[in-house]
């Protein structure tokens, strides 16, 4: 365990940024957002960023491959390039957990997605234990410990001090590079802080959301539940929840004709969109009810079925804050029988 004065944080960023690009949450007009570290940029104290950290590994738009067409000939140009090393500072426990969920899709389920893998391998994640959880936070429901996230390095901000703990080789390296700023310390204050954070988390309003009933029920029983009809009607079919969600990973593959050739790229897509499953051969989910159901069924039922019971939700609360009509996974889960034990 290492320690540094919070006042020196800027020096720490500068030191890290000397070797690789550093991203950190910064306050802006849309709340906190991850930005590249440059002189003068200061760390946001917000509970979390408005957008999730998934962009770092799964950007909204990513070029897949280029083509050149000349008469009957086609040339395939593999546009993949080695990503440069980068550091993300200030990732919260929930977002870190979301990386694990994305890993399950893009790395652990074959075939490996080389675009994702490329970015993942070059990213160093410095997590930051939560200090001020919000009413919309419910990571505890998914067994996530906001007080002690993993990642390559874990940080705690305690008053004027920041504590660092390297968890991986990558993390060790990074800490070593900034060694002159850090001093070795005892873990005790951090342990106390963790206890305090956990106590705080225990007081959050949605902490007791129980998903057992949903898990115990047969997939089709959940699917055919009458609650969907009652809930979906207010949904306007936008993609806000999916785009702010750290675990949503659906994408569309599209082409763009440039003046030179054709770029094939993928971009985020949302299962809430009416054209999500619209293809030449037909459409699987024709109504908003079906699409609305798909999103929540996927997160709460389908994904766990394929992933050892792990839900595709980390309780970050972003969708609770962003949904234009305040419909969200908590309301859905409660309606499906996930009532908190009072």
């Amino acid at each position: 365990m290492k320690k540094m004065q919070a006042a020196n944080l800027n020096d720490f960023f500068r030191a890290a940024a000397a070797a690789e690009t550093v991203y950190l949450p910064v306050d802006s007009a849309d709340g906190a957002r991850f930005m590249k570290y440059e002189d003068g940029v200061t760390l946001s104290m917000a509970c979390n960023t408005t957008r999730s950290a998934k962009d770092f590994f799964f950007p909204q738009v990513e070029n897949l491959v280029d083509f050149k067409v000349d008469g009957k000939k086609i040339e395939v140009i593999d546009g993949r390039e080695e990503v440069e090393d980068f550091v993300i500072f200030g990732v919260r426990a929930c977002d870190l957990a979301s990386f694990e969920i994305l890993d399950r899709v893009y790395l652990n389920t074959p075939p490996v997605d080389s675009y994702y893998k490329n970015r993942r391998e070059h990213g160093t994640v410095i997590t930051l234990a939560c200090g001020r959880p919000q009413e919309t936070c419910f990571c505890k429901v998914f067994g996530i410990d906001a007080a002690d996230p993993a990642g390559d390095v874990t940080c705690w901000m305690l008053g004027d001090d920041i504590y660092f703990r390297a968890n991986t080789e990558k993390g060790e390296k990074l800490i070593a590079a900034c060694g002159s700023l850090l001093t070795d310390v005892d873990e005790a204050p951090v342990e106390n802080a963790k206890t305090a954070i956990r106590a705080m988390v225990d007081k959050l309003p949605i902490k007791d959301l129980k998903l057992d009933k949903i898990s115990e029920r047969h997939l089709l029983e959940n699917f055919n539940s009458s609650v969907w009809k009652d809930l979906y009607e207010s949904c306007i079919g936008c993609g806000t929840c999916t785009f702010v969600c750290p675990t949503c990973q659906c994408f569309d593959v599209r082409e763009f004709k440039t003046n030179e050739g054709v770029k094939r790229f993928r971009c985020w897509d949302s299962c809430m969109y009416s054209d999500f499953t619209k293809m030449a051969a037909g459409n699987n989910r024709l109504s908003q009810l079906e699409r609305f159901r798909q999103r929540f069924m996927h997160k709460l039922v389908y994904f766990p079925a394929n992933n050892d019971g792990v839900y595709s939700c980390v309780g970050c609360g972003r969708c609770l804050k962003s949904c234009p009509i305040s419909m969200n996974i908590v309301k859905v889960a409660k309606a499906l029988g996930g009532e908190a034990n009072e």
Partner: protein
Amino acid sequence: MQRIGVFVCWCGSNIAATVDVNAVTETLAKEPGVVYATNYQYMCSESGQNLIKDAIRDQKLTGVVICSCSPRMHEATFRKAAASAGLNPYLVEIANIREQCSWIHKNKEEATEKAIILGRTAIAKVQLNAPLIAGESPVVKRALVIGGGIAGIQTALDIAEAGFEVDIVEKKPTVGGKMTQIDKTFPTLDCSACILTPKMVEVAQNDNIKIYSYSEVEAVKGFVGNFTVSIRKKARYVKEDICTGCGLCTEKCPQKNVPNEFNLGLDTRRAIYIPFAQAVPKVATIDPNYCTKLNTGKCGVCEKICTAGAIDYTQKDEIVEQQYGAIVVATGYNPIKLDNFEEYAYSQSPDVVTSLEFERLMNAAGPTGGVLLRPSDKTHPHTIVFVQCVGSRDVSGCGKPYCSKICCMYTAKHAMLCREKYPDTEVYVFYIDVRTPGKNFDEFYRRAVEEYNVHYIKGMVGKVAPSGGKLKVQASDLLNNEQLHIDADMVVLAAAIEPDKSARPLATMLTASMDTNDFFTEAHPKLRPVESPTAGIYLSGCCQGPKDIPETVSQASACAAKVIGLLAKDKLTCNPCVAHSDELMCNGCSSCANVCPYGAITYVEKEFRQPDRTMLVRRVASVNPAVCQGCGACTVACPSGAMDLFGFSNKQIMAEVDAICK
């Protein structure tokens, strides 16, 4: 896969001197989809055209691009050539490398490069061209003329003369219109009735003409060549086919105090009446507002005395539905109401009259039997003041902003006639400008001033105050810069004229556009002055703008010529480059219909299968290709992109943009 042929024309040296046609041909040959490219001295020549035709056949071309002169020059030529070789003519695109390239650039390299880009643009467009087939619609060989004034009469006669059936719908009991009320006509001073009534008779007797008098247009459906019109024949309580027009009933009717509209209320008529002696049809009409029998059930005098048995108190309005190929609007004009002009005391003194009332007072068949008498005391007026531009050229909002055009001339006529008949009268005319553009018009006006000593005063009348049997007229003489006070016996106001009130609802029915003054808009102010922008709707007379009689008659004949031109066709070939709506995308919001100048867009309620498998009735736009002229205004008004234009589709234009910017 597209098989496009590119044909580069040298146009002798017109193109070849500044554009390297070989380089253009070679470069364009490599464009995607191009399977054949060649160049030739004169593509438009017969051998050039044959080159194209042969290539279409031999190479099985699916699209043709011709790099040549402006499409305005030879597009039709090349389309025809393609069609004769079996290729849809709308699969031909022209790259304009003469007027817009070789002729404006001197540098050969630059011009060649531009020609290549223009060629590439045309190729990009032709890739997306769809074969278009010009639609055809049948033409019903009958015309409808709405309004039976001189404009309508002349149009109807001319059309009937050409051998087509014409129906006239006239809302009054008789045809003839305003001209029947006029005494003499300028500048010849011949008798209005003498020249009009023979035409009215002619209309009545022409086998091709059917008159719906005392009738109004109720509804119009359909489009050019095929309108369906509902005509309401108002109940006149007299059987039109039985009434002989003897007029006995109009003398015996006990209800005597009905204001006579023919004489503008200057005298009275009976409840059953024939508007005037030469009315066509000469049939009596019962005025339901005044008839005692109809209102109280008592009386029945006319029925008793009618030997023909023509009276029928139970008659009801009747709706007749009829098909027409063309519709002529000849709804005419009215003098404006003078309520807004208190300064002229029109409503205070009966001796302040409008010019049209003055016509009646001068007319031998009028209320005074042609003797000019003051309405108030039936005495002979000695001093008469004419005020011009009452409500015309008035931007204050009280009147009309436009010039009513006829007032200068009829005022000169009135003044002249007064002086001629009653040389002892003093006649003053107050004018802003005297406008006399017309054959013999200025001479006429000068005669009024010079021979008849009418006092023309440039200036405005400020006030007319009735006082002890006189009308005190306060006016300014602008030329002499003095205030004038005239004690007049009569004041005659040249009231502005405005389109008949029935025109506005009619325009809505016809989807014909109007200007802010409710005059019908012509399709083109210079080149298509007698057609409405809505195909199949024609404009005759004052409904399009103020006109005098000769002008009205010439427009009426011009209009007839246009109608005859339409009716002579068995089928109409439509321009296939028209708008079309994708019903699945359409929201039914009406934005497109709101900008369509032709009323080509209608809405239908249609049942659609929704994405969620349910059926839903939605309102969607539907374009009538026979009416649409292909301007494309709707395509931009449409937010959902449901509207697109054949021949100039969104994708085609974007492909052109892409090719140019490449």
